[in-house]
């Protein structure tokens, strides 16, 4: 279950990457980034409860859409929805993407920064910007504890401790008042880190990591749709533009490696073969991915 939900999130991330990568293949936008930040509406969400992650970007230019913005890989969260808003005005463009998520289990979760690739209008160089990262502390609830396979003992213990919770709640009210008081004095946000457009050299995700993500998705979601998404992700990995055919991709220098060629051909089969052959084709594609991962190790 956890494996499937993780795969769904990676799948969504691959889908989000698809739009960005197709644009990337064409050209980078020329932008003057003024702020770029990642925030959440709940720093300590409850397990199973819906909360939101927000990526906010302000640029000086008036643009109709923001391209080449990659969301973080939310492997430990369930993706529930995604809403984008772009507002252009005389003072530039505000882009805001809100992702509704929920955490299936309790415990700390590290959310990696979102990235943006663009040409810096200040100096004309292609750069990558990072938001801040986030660390969420997910509070396990009774239902989530039970769902994750805990014994009924924990449930009984939880109900016995409910009386104590009322006491803790009273203490929390006092603590909250203190926190609010401190916030007023120091308005720096607790979770929204300072958003500075800091051009830094991006830590490239290796091909092996991409292939591992693809294998996770395909092994968990043995469907045509997942195969098509994985095929697209691997094609982008070798520099293919949208709309190319297998023949075009195999002609690229990045596809000369025999293991990669085998992988590309296997993924093409899983995307286009008939339904009765789909299971075998996906199995072959997974095997080809494993071979590629082993060879890249």
């Amino acid at each position, binding site marked *: 279950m956890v494996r499937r939900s993780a795969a769904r999130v990676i799948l969504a991330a691959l889908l989000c990457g698809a739009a960005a990568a197709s644009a990337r293949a064409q050209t980078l936008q020329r932008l003057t980034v003024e702020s770029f930040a990642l925030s959440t509406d709940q720093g300590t969400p409850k397990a199973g409860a819906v909360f939101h992650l927000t990526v906010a970007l302000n640029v000086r230019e008036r643009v109709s859409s923001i391209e080449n913005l990659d969301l973080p890989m939310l492997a430990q969260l369930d993706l529930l929805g995604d809403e984008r808003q772009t507002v252009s005005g005389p003072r530039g463009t505000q882009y805001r993407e809100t992702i509704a998520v929920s955490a299936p289990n309790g415990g700390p979760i590290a959310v990696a920064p979102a990235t943006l690739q663009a040409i810096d209008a200040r100096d004309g160089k292609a750069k990558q910007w990072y938001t801040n990262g986030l660390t969420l502390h997910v509070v396990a609830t009774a239902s989530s504890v039970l769902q994750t396979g805990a014994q009924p003992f924990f449930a009984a213990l939880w109900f016995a401790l409910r009386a104590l919770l009322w006491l803790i709640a009273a203490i929390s009210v006092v603590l909250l008042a203190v926190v609010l008081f401190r916030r007023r004095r120091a308005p720096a946000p607790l979770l929204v880190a300072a958003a500075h457009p800091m051009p830094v050299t991006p830590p490239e995700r290796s091909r092996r990591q991409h292939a591992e993500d693809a294998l996770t998705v395909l092994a968990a979601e043995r469907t045509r749709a997942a195969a098509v998404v994985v095929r697209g992700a691997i094609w982008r990995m070798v520099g293919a533009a949208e709309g190319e055919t297998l*023949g075009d991709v195999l002609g690229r220098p990045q596809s000369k490696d025999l293991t990669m060629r085998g992988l590309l051909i296997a993924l*093409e089969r899983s*995307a286009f*073969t008939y339904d009765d052959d789909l299971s075998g084709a996906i199995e072959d594609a997974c095997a080809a991915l494993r071979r590629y991962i082993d060879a890249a190790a």
Partner: protein
Amino acid sequence: MIAARVPSDLRLALGRTIVGQEGVIEALLLALLANGHVLLEGPPGLAKTLACRALAAALEGDFKRIQFTPDLLPSDIVGTRIFDQRESAFATVLGPIFANVVLADEINRAPAKVQSALLEAMQERQVTIGPQSYALPDPFVVMATMNPLDSEGTYALPIAQMDRFLMKVRVGYPSREEELGILERFAVTDTQPVRAVATLDDVRAWRAQAHAVHIDEKLKRYIVELVARTRDAGAVSVSSETAAPLRVAELIDYGASPRATLALAFLARGRALLDGRDFALPDDVRAVANHALRHRIGFNYRLAVEGVSPERVIDAIVASVPAP
């Protein structure tokens, strides 16, 4: 599942007779697999007729050659009814169209009236002589040749007949190496006779296999979009030798018919089968796009004026539609 004799025996048999011209050999095999007719266009001396004869000889079937001339009559092709004085009744004499492989040589040298005699045969696979219709043998393939250089004494093929050809193949000049091979093979000896390597039952079995080749929903939509783009090219443009890039829509009077959609699917299936696959890919569609579309699109005079070939226009259309 895949019949090994298609790519090996038949292709090898043709390769023993024809030097180079891999594209022509593949096109003939595709027409055979897709149960369609093929029009070969190219200058004289490029082995068009030889290729058709070789394919017919490689199959254990009836082969007839019809040399199209300006004085040819429809009855010379389909047959006629003659009066039998001994029986005092009309008897039907079937024409040379009743064969498995029919070579219509220099098809554009006969007037439209004669070419129209082929319409029923090519589409319905039957011929009507007098009051009676006669079914043509199965398989039945018309392989026509035409020379694009001569304009004197030739007639333009009717649009309806052009559309009935599954594919039109441009036959180009051989490379230097291929021409050297032609010199070595045929300068001292005559053309090697081709031995039959496949039966008509083999052909029918291959067709059944080609028909079973899977075309995914994404690929079907891709094919439909390609054909639709020939009718409404939008902002697609093609570079010109004489001027700025030209809008494709201004070069086309009418786009391809739904037969083109079917032709692309049939040919893609055939190519997948030749490649040993039982599912078609976008590459298959792209590879056969020119064969299936070049004679089905109505180009206007500007194409010639601007020095743009139909193939470049089709390539631009294909490039404008993202493959799935």
